[in-house]
């Protein structure tokens, strides 16, 4: 490993003379090791909108309703998703009101159902974060989407159906800026 690094450093100036493109995809320093497939799988808890990282498993709102009590969610968030000390999980207003006006409630406002799964999986329950099994996270996600009238009570959520859930917010949210170095934070905004 060390000899390899030394050798590479020695030939570096010549390679640079030949052109940068040849170097672009080769390691310069040879520091760090390759993670195993198991490490990659275990660490990768970022669930994107396509759901590609979702683990196998399944759950329904009925199962989720039981877990919501068993896992202590109701203690902080209230028996029906409202009335507890923690943020409310159910929109108070009529679902016919525009999604954006129904409150800052993740199962309503997120454009992706995968975000609800990701949030519960990494950050709940308080004090026992990361302790839920995939089936439990699918069931709790289904329960929150059901009480907010996003999905029917009997819908099974798994790694295929969850990314396909149509969220109330639709595409009524702002796309993020195409950030570039040394540019103003908003074109046309002097401040």
């Amino acid at each position, binding site marked *: 490993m060390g000899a390899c690094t030394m050798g590479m450093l020695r030939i570096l100036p010549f390679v640079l003379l030949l052109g940068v493109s040849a170097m672009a995809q080769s390691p310069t320093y040879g520091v760090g090791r390759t993670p195993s497939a198991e490490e990659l799988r275990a660490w990768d*808890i*970022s669930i994107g909108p396509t759901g590609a990282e979702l683990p196998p498993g399944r759950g329904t709102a009925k199962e989720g309703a039981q877990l919501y009590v068993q896992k202590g969610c109701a203690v902080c968030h209230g028996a029906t998703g409202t009335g507890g000390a923690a943020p409310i999980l159910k929109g108070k207003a009529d679902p016919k009101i525009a999604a954006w006006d129904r409150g800052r409630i993740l199962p309503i406002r997120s454009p992706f159902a995968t975000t609800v799964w990701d949030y519960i999986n990494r950050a709940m329950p308080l004090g026992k974060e990361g302790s839920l099994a995939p089936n439990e996270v699918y069931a709790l996600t289904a329960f929150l989407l059901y009480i907010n009238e996003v999905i029917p009570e009997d819908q099974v959520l798994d790694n295929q159906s969850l990314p396909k859930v149509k969220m109330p917010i639709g595409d009524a949210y702002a796309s993020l800026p195409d950030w570039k170095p*040394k540019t103003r934070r908003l074109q046309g905004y002097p401040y």
Partner: protein
Amino acid sequence: MGSKRTDRRGFLKGGAALAGGLTLGAVEPAAGQTPASGASGASGAMIKGSKELIAYGDRSRFVTSVRIAHGGRPSPDAFGLVFHVAAPLQDSVGVITPSSLHYTATTRGSYLPDIDPREHRLMIHGMVDRPLIFTLEDLKRLPSVTRLHFIECAGNRSSPNGKTVQETHGLTSCAEWTGVLLSTLLKEAGVKAGATWFVAEGAEEVKGASSMPIAKAMDDCLVCYGMNGEPVRPQQGFPLRLMVPGFEGIFATKFLRRIKLVDRYYLNYNDYGHLDQDPKVAALDYQIGPKSVITFPSGGQQLPGRGFYEISGLAWSGGGAIRRVEVSTDGGRRWNNAEIKGTPQRMAHTRFGYQWNWDGQETELLSRCTDELGQVQPSRAQVAQFWNVPLDPSFRVPGLDNSIQPWRIARDGSVHNGHA
């Protein structure tokens, strides 16, 4: 250990009493404060050397500046959870915030993970040619970069309720950060075509994660193991913190354990707060605008009388280096160039000063800055005009609030929040 704690508490109490006495004394004409009597110390007291003080120095017991819980939420709360804690900018000199006084913030309150750096790993994966895992030792072998950078919380928003600059502006701090450029690590892993965003994730209980554009990663993000000449403090993300210069503080991922390159916006955990209806507001929630505040004289301080004062303050911008700072001593009618102290660094606090003779009349002190991109710090009235909404006390500056902070000087020398 127990007896040492008691001693510390005794020190703090004594220090607070003395500091109060000094403040009162300072209001009086300076009787008994001639250089001759002040130089040697009235009591002749000395501090004996101890093993502890040789190993790790303490500040003077007469220096009592501390952080405070921010926004009316106790830190720690009854369970020991810490929320937002503000830095005492009113006592700051120069541009570096001591690590012990650097502000901290967590969105839902948290404990600190007690991480053994020998066990800590950083994984880089996703849309790369070669996923890689680095130990701290690995990272320290790589070419390092040391830069001054501020961090500022999106909640750093002056309100009429804020009495001091700590309450109105204390959720920003500046430190010297040392680490490896994220671009160095990404080139080592080989960025695949089509990678447009990356997710940075911490090792704490919620595995806090933020999505950021890959252009930022390649420009100036730093994977930091050092802060102000020592390892990053636990409250700041020990053993690794991602610096995202000029972006809102929440992006500066603490306890950094993972960087994943992806082809779209991921909306994980911390990103949820950035969702907005209006793309203009969404844009103003990323890069911090040009901002400055006068730290002396500032709310809650007391001027002993008319005469000469150097007005002092801090200016910073997420857009780059500060180019100009102006000060008004008459409520904004006339603006004068302030002196910039030292060489302004990009995305770093910059100290400014302005020489002022107070005539003893009521007035208002203001500062505003301009950054290298030509962005100018606005008044609340200018922002309201841009959005074409009425300026009333409830007007909320969209995105991070970088509006001008007025300090009102009363005839008795007391200093007050001009928004109150």
